[in-house]
């Protein structure tokens, strides 16, 4: 396997790796015919990211036909190859990635200015394929925005904030911090931003859903989008279904799939079209009447759309363990079903749907799989067929 990246693309590759490090500790590398796939997943399987670099991204991309190679390595080691991004930009002329199967080493060779050659021989482990099953095209709500819009939105939230809730109506999107406990809600600072449809390049809402997902992982994608200037697309469905964030250009595609909090009551109440309007107060934003909005905030117990969709107290208290409706092929070596006690919010996320090793269908073609066998199911509920 021989891949060569030149010029500005070296920095893009480095940025992608740094973004993936925000998701998980290991980098999964899979050279495919349609490009080089770099993936990462978090320990609780509630966040997955994949960057696929098409052969045209490289100045040279040659993989032996029939190469069936997949590996994983500590992402920190790969990050150290692309340690200082400003330096990369200034001094690296090309980056060569090669595989030495005999010695189990993936070699990154950076050809830099002034005749300096940096060679990193990184050890790897063989691994099974890692792919999340998701279908962007079947999502009810689709948005596309310039990265700046989203970066300017998340900057208002503290870096310690775990989760954000995104709520949409026909014309607007609200982003607010998610507060766990009902008790905390009265003491915590609540921050909410509203984005109008015209701030987006594309804003298509079919259902007024409200989803909650992890901000840290979202920021990971924004890191990449902002430095490359690529617009971010967002696809989501009802709460519990993952939200997909994408950046694409002609030579690369990045997808971040994040689990969202599922709440059965939300599912029952899930708004489809008309119903939603009733749960929102008269929309003062239509007239951009800030004063009216401020007054609404002061006087009403449930300001604006923030709590309209949420059933009263129950959200905090009726949280069940992830619905059994998940299918996981336990193919990965380090499959961990235990929740990491240091990251409590993940316990409440549903695991993503993972497919088995697929026939070389490309990442770009994200059709849902036909029925898969359920390996683990909750005895209380019936397993649903896909």
């Amino acid at each position: 396997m021989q891949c060569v990246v030149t010029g500005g693309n070296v920095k893009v590759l480095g940025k992608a790796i740094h973004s993936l490090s925000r998701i998980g500790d290991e980098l999964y590398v899979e050279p495919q015919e349609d490009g080089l796939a770099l993936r990462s997943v978090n320990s609780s399987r509630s966040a997955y990211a994949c960057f696929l670099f098409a052969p045209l991204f490289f100045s040279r991309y040659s993989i032996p036909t029939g190469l069936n190679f997949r590996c994983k390595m500590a992402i920190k080691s790969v990050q150290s190859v692309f340690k200082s991004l400003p330096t990369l930009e200034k001094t690296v002329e090309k980056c060569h990635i090669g595989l030495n199967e005999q010695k189990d080493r993936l070699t990154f060779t950076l050809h830099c200015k002034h005749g300096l050659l940096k060679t990193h021989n990184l050890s790897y482990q063989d691994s099974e394929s890692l792919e999340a099953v998701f279908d962007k095209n079947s999502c009810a709500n689709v948005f596309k925005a310039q990265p700046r819009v989203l970066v300017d939105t998340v900057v208002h939230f503290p870096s310690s904030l775990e989760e954000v809730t995104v709520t949409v109506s026909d014309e607007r999107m609200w982003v607010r911090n998610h507060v766990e406990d009902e008790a905390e809600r009265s003491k915590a600072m609540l921050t909410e931003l509203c984005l109008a449809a015209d701030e987006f390049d594309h804003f298509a809402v079919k259902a007024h859903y409200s989803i909650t997902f992890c901000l840290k992982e979202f920021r990971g994608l924004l890191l990449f989008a902002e430095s490359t200037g690529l617009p971010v697309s967002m696809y989501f469905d009802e709460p519990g279904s993952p939200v997909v964030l994408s950046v694409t250009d002609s030579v690369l595609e990045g997808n971040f799939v994040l689990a969202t909090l599922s709440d059965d009551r939300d599912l029952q109440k899930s708004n489809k079209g008309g119903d939603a309007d009733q749960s929102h107060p008269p929309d003062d934003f239509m007239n951009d009447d800030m004063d009216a909005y401020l007054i609404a905030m002061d006087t009403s117990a449930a300001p604006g759309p923030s709590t309209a969709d949420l059933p009263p107290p129950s959200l905090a208290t009726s949280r069940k363990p992830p619905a059994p409706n998940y299918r996981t092929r336990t193919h990965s070596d380090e499959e961990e079903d235990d929740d990491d006690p240091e990251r409590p919010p993940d316990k409440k996320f549903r695991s993503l749907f993972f497919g088995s090793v697929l026939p070389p269908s490309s990442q770009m073609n994200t059709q849902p799989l036909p029925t898969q066998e359920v390996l683990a199911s909750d005895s209380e509920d019936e397993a649903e067929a896909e």
Partner: protein
Amino acid sequence: MPLSTQSQSQDEQYVLVANLDNARNLSNILKAITCKDHAVFTATANGLKVTVEDCKCMQANAFIQADIFQEYTLKEDMVIFQINLTVLLDCLNIFGGSTAAGASTALRMCYMGHGHPLTLFLEEGGVVTVCKINTQEPEDPIDFEFSSSNVTNKVILQSESLKEAFSELDMTSEVLQITMSPSQPYFRLSTFGNSGNAHYDYSKDSDMMELFQCNKTQTNRYKMSLLKPSTKALAISCKVSVRTDSRGLLSLQYLVRNDNGQICFVEYFCCPDEEVEEE
């Protein structure tokens, strides 16, 4: 200058008097060799040499020539004492060590001889501080017997590129391996860490390479912990010479320009870890 109001008679008692208009010209270079608490000061007619040693296999020397000082008076052929380097640096920076333009600390360093403390008079903006630091019996610095005539391989590099390599070195590696050779890879720094190994190769034709004189292929390993402090000297230097002798002993010489543009030298010696067969 308040310092000059020092009475002449007292001056006659000192075996060493050294004046600097800008104490940073001394403190900056001493910071580059601070890896241990104690240092040995050796003053000769040529100037001041400050030596720090670690584990009997690494030695760092800072040379401040006599002409760097505004006044340098030595009454004996050689004056040697040992002193706590950390305390000395704290005193030299007693006025805060700020690099604000115009604000510089003037220094007058005086030593009466064996058994006496080192006296520092520091002045900034009309305020004078007197520091007396106890001296100790000096331990004999090791003489590594590195002679220029016994040099096997020598390269001189511009510090800029070496700084980049050193800042990226895999610190999980216990050793730094240096390969110098008349053929490929010419000059190579290697690390062997948890995630694999890494090599930094400098071509002999590189424009960062000012001098390349390698006669024989040599590969030596040095403990990373012993060489790490040398990055401080690298940071303030503009050029570095890397030499090895037949025993694999490493000599790193750094050319440092002080605030006044004058040249000082810092030198590191390091013993090799073990003999390594060519790969």
